[in-house]
């Protein structure tokens, strides 16, 4: 079709440019063409090992490095972008269309970047384009959340740049291959990736901004940023032990918040971190099986998480909110959305025959093979937890539970089509995992469907669901309430502003006293001066500094004039 070295971000940036100039069906066609043609091109024309470098100011930038790892992420990003373009077709919002295309293109640019400078450029483009998907909500709280999002992401970019420079000093190489944490540059880069991957205490930008984004924007955001981070971790830090423990914490702590959170899109944001934890854990183990598991989980996760965010986007679009306390009974007016949401819920819960099962199993098996029993038990606990918030809570409180009385229309047709595509892929991957396994970067000899595995997983999930039923009937389940739950963001959203205003208040008396002293001093000088005979002179009618400045200006001007004339 085309030359194989065409970097995959080019069609997206072109389409973004043209989307600015067009509207209506023409723009729709252009937006659909970018991921479709780009994806087909990547699948048919780009073999493993393709390289494209350009030289810029003595540096050789590798704009395109295609190997099995980057290609896998390239494929799924194209698929997701295609689905998401369909999902946003009903919009008449140039800002979101253009930002979405640039955002998806930047993600592809980052994934195919062969050196750290190119990665940095796309890292920053990802930030600048994605924040508009938050701001496009056009509300005061969204614009504030967008600023906080920017602060985190820009810090991540700065750390990446600083880390790149330090890494270059130590190794003399800018290539983006295994980085590791042997030199301080590696640590800085790991921190940069960690912010984007929502490591504990660095995660609040995600749970803050995604629920504030537009109905469609949250679905788009859920796909790219964090998965670019997973890719970069898999490329730069495989087998880093620290990541096993970070990943295990990431799977466990967000689920507690997800249980008590009311906004279902925020529940999904917490569950997104939980899913990232499984991937980070797999990267930390670093065996072929574990790394395959991490990237396979990223692949299937992108589809089911986007599906869940799309279904909640449809609910937000039709019902006006996504609060568990205010929704319920929506299956009556949005039955198709409800069904598609359940497919996403089954996939994320790793029910056999759905996509989450075939990818999560790889990570779990790798953990046992490496003797990480405690971490394995933590992840098993988190798997039961996923069932609570993403598997049951999201579909149950939105579409079933008590009837809220909300009657609305089914989701627009383009939204349904997009969700249906994602749902079909979730089931296909779950039923025919061999096709996904064949794409994985490392040789894998694994099959998830044996009696032991299926039975164990079904028991785990069904009895966790049984606990849900029991607690709902007995009234032990926590009620859904309008509230804010304090998280790490407390430090910068509460402690920091409170400290500043406290300091201002605490120093107020001191500043007042100083102010008073100055006033007194001036007045004393004034009265003393007025008693002198100097005060009778004409030029001294005002405070003498004024006239002094005037005279100095005249003298200086005179000198300058003399200088020019003579």
């Amino acid at each position, binding site marked *: 079709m085309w030359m194989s070295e065409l970097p995959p971000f080019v069609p997206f940036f072109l389409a973004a440019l043209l989307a600015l100039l067009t509207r209506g069906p023409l723009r729709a066609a252009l937006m659909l063409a970018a991921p479709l043609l780009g994806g087909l091109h990547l699948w048919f024309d780009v073999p493993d090992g393709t390289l494209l470098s350009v030289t810029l100011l003595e540096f050789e930038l590798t704009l395109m490095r295609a190997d099995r790892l980057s290609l896998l992420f390239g494929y799924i990003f194209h698929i997701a972008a295609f689905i998401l373009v369909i999902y946003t077709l009903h919009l008449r919002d140039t800002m979101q269309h253009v930002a979405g295309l640039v955002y998806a293109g930047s993600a592809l640019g980052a994934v195919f970047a062969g050196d750290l400078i190119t990665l940095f450029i796309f890292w920053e483009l990802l930030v600048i384009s994605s924040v508009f998907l938050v701001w496009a909500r056009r509300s005061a709280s969204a614009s504030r959340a967008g600023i906080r999002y920017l602060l985190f992401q820009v810090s991540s970019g700065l750390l990446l740049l600083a880390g790149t420079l330090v890494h270059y000093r130590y190794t003399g190489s800018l290539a983006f291959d295994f980085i590791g944490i042997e030199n301080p540059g590696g640590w800085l880069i790991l921190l940069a990736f960690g912010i984007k991957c929502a490591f504990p205490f660095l995660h609040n930008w995600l749970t803050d901004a995604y629920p504030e984004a537009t109905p469609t924007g949250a679905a788009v955001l859920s796909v790219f940023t964090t998965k670019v981070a997973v890719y970069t971790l898999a490329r730069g830090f495989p087998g880093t032990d620290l990541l096993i423990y970070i990943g295990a914490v990431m799977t466990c702590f967000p689920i507690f918040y997800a249980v008590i959170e009311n906004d279902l899109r925020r529940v999904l944001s917490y569950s997104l971190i939980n899913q990232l934890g499984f991937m980070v854990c797999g990267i930390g183990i670093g065996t072929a099986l574990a790394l395959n598991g991490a990237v396979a989980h990223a692949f299937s996760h992108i589809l089911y998480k986007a599906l869940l965010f799309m279904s909640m986007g449809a609910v937000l679009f039709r019902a006006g909110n996504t609060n568990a306390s205010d929704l319920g009974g929506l299956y009556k007016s949005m039955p198709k959305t409800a069904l598609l949401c359940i497919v996403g819920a089954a996939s994320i819960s790793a029910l056999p025959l759905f996509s989450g099962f075939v990818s999560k199993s790889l990570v779990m098996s790798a953990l046992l093979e490496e003797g990480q029993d405690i971490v394995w038990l933590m992840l098993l606990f988190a798997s039961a937890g996923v069932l609570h918030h993403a598997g049951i809570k999201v579909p149950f409180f939105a579409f079933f539970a008590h009837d809220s009385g909300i009657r609305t229309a089914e989701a627009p047709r383009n939204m349904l089509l997009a969700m249906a595509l994602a749902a079909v892929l979730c089931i296909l991957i779950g039923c025919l995992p061999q096709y996904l396994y064949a794409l994985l970067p490392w040789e894998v000899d694994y099959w998830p469907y044996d009696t032991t595995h299926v039975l164990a997983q079904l028991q785990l999930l*069904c009895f966790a669901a049984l606990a849900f039923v029991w607690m709902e009937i007995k009234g032990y389940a926590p009620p859904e309430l309008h509230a804010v739950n304090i998280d790490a963001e407390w430090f910068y959203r509460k402690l920091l502003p409170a400290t500043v205003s406290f300091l201002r208040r605490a120093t107020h008396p001191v500043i007042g006293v100083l102010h008073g002293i100055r006033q007194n001093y001036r007045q004393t000088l004034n009265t003393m001066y007025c008693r002198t005979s100097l005060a009778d002179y004409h030029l001294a009618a005002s405070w003498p500094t004024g006239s002094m400045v005037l005279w100095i200006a005249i003298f200086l001007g005179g000198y300058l004039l003399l200088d020019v004339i003579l």
Partner: protein
Amino acid sequence: MKHPDEKQYLFDKPENVNRFLRGFYAVCGLLFVLDFIIHRHASRDWEQLPGFYAIYGFVAFVMLVLVAKLLRKLMMRREDYYDVDE
């Protein structure tokens, strides 16, 4: 909005909900019994305990919800909590 003469939906009838729940209980019971019939390959001793996964799933879930309720006591604030200082 809801109309009084609106048609009855699937889960408006309590007997449908009960039918669904009874089916679910049956599946759970079957899965638990299967543990004694089918031999699971286990790489660890504790995995070999009959009903290990079922019990783990149930207990994990209950623990999760109970701890989350405690967390709520500690962490829950009014909805405009952050708006005051910003």
